[in-house]
């Protein structure tokens, strides 16, 4: 039977909040970035693409370590914030949000890039000759034609943030209600030998991750079929 403590519920809430915020921010930032990557002939493109893909191969601890240095009280960003009378970002929700955004970036950019490439330049050229400006093209052509790419990007980003651990532990520690997300809480429960608690949350995460991926692959198949038509 489910016996979740107040601390467990708090962690679930915090995790969902982190996932939603991360997904929303990444869709806003990732769309123009993926668009630029799909269009640009610039020499910078390869370098940017490599940077975007870095979180795929780096250990999360490395990422978390550098972010801690950067956002902490003595870092370039954190230090500046403190001089302005604002709190630094280490061990805070804002801090782990920034970490998540960077960590999940490739999971937003790759599916979008793929769907922009699949669409090709022709639909936009057509729209332009019919009097549609850039923004109009985005809403009347890109969004509907790349709908599949956006849905896949959003779900993958959400799911990947759900499973984030290393970056958060390094950067945020385990402060209940602030940085203690599910994956961190499971770690804490295990450390404290609370196996039943750890079990419940682990199984919950396992099932929800499976459901999300199942939906993504189902959508992928559907949109591929649509693209063939």
């Amino acid at each position, binding site marked *: 039977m489910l016996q979740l403590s107040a601390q467990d519920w708090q962690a679930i809430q915090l995790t969902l909040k982190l996932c939603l915020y991360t997904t929303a921010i990444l869709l806003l930032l990732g769309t123009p970035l993926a668009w630029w990557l799909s269009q640009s002939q610039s020499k910078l493109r390869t370098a940017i693409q490599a940077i975007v893909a870095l979180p795929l191969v780096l250990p999360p601890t490395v990422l978390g370590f550098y972010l801690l240095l950067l956002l902490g009280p003595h870092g370039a960003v954190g230090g500046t914030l403190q001089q302005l009378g604002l709190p630094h970002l280490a061990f805070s929700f804002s801090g782990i949000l920034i970490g998540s955004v960077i960590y999940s970036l490739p999971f937003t950019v790759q599916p979008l890039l793929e769907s922009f490439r699949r669409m090709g330049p022709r639909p936009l050229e057509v729209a332009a000759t019919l*009097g*549609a400006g850039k923004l109009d093209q985005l809403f009347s052509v890109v969004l509907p034609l790349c709908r599949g790419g956006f849905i896949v990007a959003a779900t993958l980003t959400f799911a990947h943030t759900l499973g984030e651990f290393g970056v958060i532990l390094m950067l945020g520690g385990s402060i209940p209600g602030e940085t203690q997300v599910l994956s961190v809480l499971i770690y804490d429960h295990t450390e404290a030998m609370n196996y039943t608690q750890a079990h419940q949350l682990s199984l919950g995460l396992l099932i929800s991750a499976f459901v999300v991926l199942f939906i993504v692959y189902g959508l992928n198949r559907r949109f591929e079929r649509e693209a063939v038509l």
Partner: protein
Amino acid sequence: MTLALQLTVKRGAFSLQVEHSLPLQGITALFGRSGCGKTTLLRAIAGLDRHADAQIRFNDTVWQQGKHFVPVHQRRIGMVFQESSLLPHLSVEQNLLYGYRRLVKGITVSMLPEQVIELLALKPLLKQHPEQLSGGQRQRVALGRALLSQPQLLLLDEPLASLDQQSRSEILPFLQRIANHSGIPMLLVSHQLDDVVKLADNLVLMQHGSIHSQGSLPQQLLKPELAASGAMSLLYAQCSGIKHHLLQLHIGQQPLQLPAPLFLTAAAGAYSPLTYRLRIQARDIALSLTKLNDSSVSNQLQVSITGFNPAPHPAETLVQLNLEDQPLQALLTKQSVERLRLQVGQSVYAQIKAVALD
């Protein structure tokens, strides 16, 4: 209407250099072999590609000069691409209205949706989706969509190239109808002389990345570069009616009779005096010094010889003729020319053995 172009493009082995002013009236064909730069030129005119230092002016409007560049969506051009370019997430009707709904206020609407749907016979297709249409139907929708955006210039990039023969013959009459009804100047890119002679009024001949010559289609057809793939002539003839299933045509004062197309004879009396385009292969014309009364060929027209051009085959000559101020050419063997002692200025009879009507 004039399109003034100044453009240099270099891409690897490909180069395009154009510095011309094209008068646009009716359908102007941009004709040349694949790879001669036709499409590159058309895309630059549309504003789809931006080349450095290009200058493009349409009538009094500068589209590109120095840093000034009018983006595609503000040029008010219609464009039909080679392959299907319908937006796949929209129905035929939504595709048709895509440009129409985006018209800037203050533009005079000369093509209404109902008219275009009627003109292109699109009514039965409106609720369908692009993937349900045949190639010819898609191009018809693309054409209607371009027209409804009320373009001041219509650019057609090989609109027939991806179609089979049947779809081609389905769409050709529509293109002619649009040219006649809308009064919108069209620039048609094509490497098929057959399509060009059926449609175009003027022809711009492109070779190796530059404009070789430009002029009215009948005049341009006399160019040896075009004669290489089968010399032919284009005549404009007036029609005064149908008698005994024969179209009664005349060029100037000279009469010409041709079997009337069956759809015309069926609707007897439904004709009106029209101008027909007659395509005549140079090899389907024979010349005689006098009018022949003992020949089965009944279309004999009096012409005068204006010159001789070399033909692709060394034994033949293309004889240039003037028929009531329209150019005509006949393919004869050099031997025949010598035997009849044909000379410039001489008046002879042209026996026309076969004509294609458009």
